[in-house]
């Protein structure tokens, strides 16, 4: 009975995490299209939400990685998964409150690894999967997006360089409907699958599913719905962040940045690599800017991404471990997770209230 209560808490928390993931990432997905004038904000956001939803259904490779290749599902309990989720949410909340860059995806993986280590020891961590499928792709993907966008925009300028600017701008703006759509699809498929993976891991840990089971349809559908609703609710309050804070871009740059981001995320998703989609999108935006003029790029943002990458995993892991330790003070039942949930909700409400009093957060965190 108490195990089922914890499982319900995990599912609700994971879907809430998925919603906030979409909420935060609205800016990253649609900013490029809006900043180049390719789409009106409401149209871009609605389109992105729809394609986030559709994207969640096109693959389950990343979900399988999160559920089976990062920690040993046979020694994991729903409480460990719950503590990991709280670690991720707490780190995202801390970085959001202080305006620091972050990665929700890395926080999620870090939180679960931290709580698993605290509960079972390092034997619970599948080092091969963690390093080979999470850490190395996390480094490679943004650099790859940077290179692809840089080459692509260089090639584009050579092909259309002698054409009239009007037709070129108009053409790439139309193209951004496709590239922006693909980026939203890619974002939906990679990010929603992380939630699917976490819920599946909890279902396996609870004995509801077998060790090799894939995510059930209701898990896929609920994760898709949560991220799509989150994206739609994200609004365009924070759209300026990605679209204009890194470079001021033209439509061709927007197209190549979105195309590079979508290509890298979709290819990585196919092989089951859970990525920070924000890092990849920013990598593409910086690549398309650097190819035109190195000084056009605000390299401080790249530095922030590096810091985020270095800090997020260990910080979320530490909070996940502490959360697991706290829940165990109250035994192995549901009391610990229930108390943690109440504390987390109170802290979130307090943080939002203080932010509302002191002004909007400095920057959006990403995934």
């Amino acid at each position, binding site marked *: 009975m108490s195990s089922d209560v914890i499982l319900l808490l995990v599912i609700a928390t994971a879907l809430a995490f998925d919603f906030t993931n979409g909420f935060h990432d609205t800016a990253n997905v649609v900013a490029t299209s809006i900043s180049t004038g390719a789409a009106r904000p409401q149209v871009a956001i609605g389109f992105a939400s729809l394609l986030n939803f559709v994207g969640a259904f096109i693959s389950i490779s990343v979900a399988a990685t999160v559920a089976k290749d990062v920690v040993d599902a046979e020694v994991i309990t729903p409480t460990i998964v719950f503590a990991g989720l709280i670690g991720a949410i707490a780190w995202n909340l801390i970085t959001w409150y202080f305006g620091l860059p972050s990665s929700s995806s890395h926080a999620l993986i870090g939180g679960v690894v931290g709580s698993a280590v605290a509960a079972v020891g390092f034997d619970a961590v599948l080092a091969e999967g963690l390093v080979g499928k999470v850490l190395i792709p996390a480094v490679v993907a943004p650099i790859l997006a940077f290179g692809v966008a840089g*080459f692509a925009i260089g090639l584009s300028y050579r092909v259309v360089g002698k054409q009239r600017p009007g037709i070129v701008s108009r053409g790439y703006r139309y193209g951004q409907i496709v590239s922006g759509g693909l980026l939203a699809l890619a974002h939906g498929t990679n990010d929603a699958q992380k939630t699917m993976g976490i819920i599946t891991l909890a279902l396996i840990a609870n004995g509801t599913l077998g060790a090799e089971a894939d995510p059930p349809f209701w898990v896929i559908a609920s994760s898709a719905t949560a991220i799509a609703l989150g994206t739609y609710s994200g609004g365009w309050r924070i759209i300026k962040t990605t679209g204009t804070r890194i470079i001021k871009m033209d439509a061709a740059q927007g197209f190549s940045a979105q195309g590079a981001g979508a290509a890298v995320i979709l290819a990585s998703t196919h092989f089951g690599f859970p990525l920070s989609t924000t890092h990849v999108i920013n990598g593409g935006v910086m690549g398309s800017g650097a190819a035109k003029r190195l000084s056009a790029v605000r390299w401080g943002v790249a530095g922030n991404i590096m810091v985020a990458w270095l800090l997020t995993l260990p910080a979320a892991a530490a909070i996940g471990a502490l959360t697991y330790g706290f829940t165990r003070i109250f035994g192995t039942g549901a009391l610990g997770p229930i108390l943690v949930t109440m504390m987390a909700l109170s802290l979130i409400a307090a943080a939002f209230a203080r932010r509302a009093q002191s002004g909007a957060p400095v920057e959006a965190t990403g995934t």
Partner: protein
Amino acid sequence: MIATIVHTDELLQTVAASLIAGIGVTFLFSVGIWGAGQFTELSRANRPVAASAAAVIGVLGLLCVAAAVITGIVVMTHK
């Protein structure tokens, strides 16, 4: 040991697919825009044959973009 951990094959395929799709699609779309631009210019210059040829190249570029996008999504959904 390191090769086992790194998943070299999958990583290299990801890099190759990203390069081909990301650069290829942008290039082909640019060819489409080039075709449209040339068609407009050459039509104004009363060169209908050259304008038609540019239009055909442009349309082919855009069709290749559509084919690449559809292929990518089909590959994604069939694993």
